[in-house]
């Protein structure tokens, strides 16, 4: 199997773009859709249980956002990477390849920071 220059540019843009968009989606609580597994319902956008049912019923209607956050980041990164893949190679070769790992490596502590509330309970 071999990879074309187009796919190389796409792949190198997709990973870092996803990492940035994932942390952004997490911070802004922007899920493309919300899953309610107990009733088998998927609603477009971000919905919290308290928006759907009375607060006392919130715990019996758990909402899942991870799929939605991932979809948000995946869709955004896909669009970014498709554009990046069209750029001439002489432009993209000037970019430092280290961004490929620096951005995800920075996004991970970003996720840790946004998860800290769990550790303060």
């Amino acid at each position: 199997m071999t990879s074309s220059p187009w796919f190389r540019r796409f792949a190198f843009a997709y990973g870092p773009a996803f990492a940035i968009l994932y942390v952004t989606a997490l911070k802004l609580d922007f899920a493309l859709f919300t899953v309610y597994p107990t009733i088998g319902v998927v609603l477009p956008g971000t919905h919290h249980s308290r928006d759907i049912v009375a607060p006392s019923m919130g715990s019996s209607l758990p909402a899942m956002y991870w799929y939605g956050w991932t979809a948000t980041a995946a869709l955004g990164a896909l669009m970014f990477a498709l554009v990046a893949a069209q750029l001439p190679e002489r432009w993209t070769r000037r970019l430092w390849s280290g961004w490929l790992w620096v951005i995800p490596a920075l996004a991970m502590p970003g996720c840790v920071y946004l998860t800290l509330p769990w550790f303060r309970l």
Partner: protein
Amino acid sequence: MSRGTAHLATALLIIHGLVAVALLGAITHQALAAWAPARGRPDSFFGRFRAVPCASYANAIVILYAVSTLLGGTVYLNFRVDIRPDLERVGHWQALGLFDLKEHFVAIGLALLPAYWVCWSQPLADEPVRTRDILTLILAFIVWWSFLVGHVLNNIMGFGL
């Protein structure tokens, strides 16, 4: 949860665990071979562990990571409905935080797979080898984190914590 659904979820969780073991082995072999390659003829277990052709693991790692994420994403529904409420009831907030981190890291790692595969399958002559090695290290960290946190969550009630 019906009996059939419970059996299916258990079967998927076991398969998820087995795939994760294979992935853990493959990524650890590759990461160690990339960062601490064996010199000369290896004569110890650790030396032989590192004396593997790194690039040959890339395809397997991409497939195992994707399959493991797919299985994990499927049983996650059962976890959210049947397991997490019990963990919340007994106040395992830190464990749930660690699990949230696992979700986040796995998603970031999944998006890195195309670039990781390109780096290993068709390295360019002028491309720094370190980029590829660091990507491997990041994926290895994610896989180890996910494996350990997954097992802690799986067994936490049995730990008596």
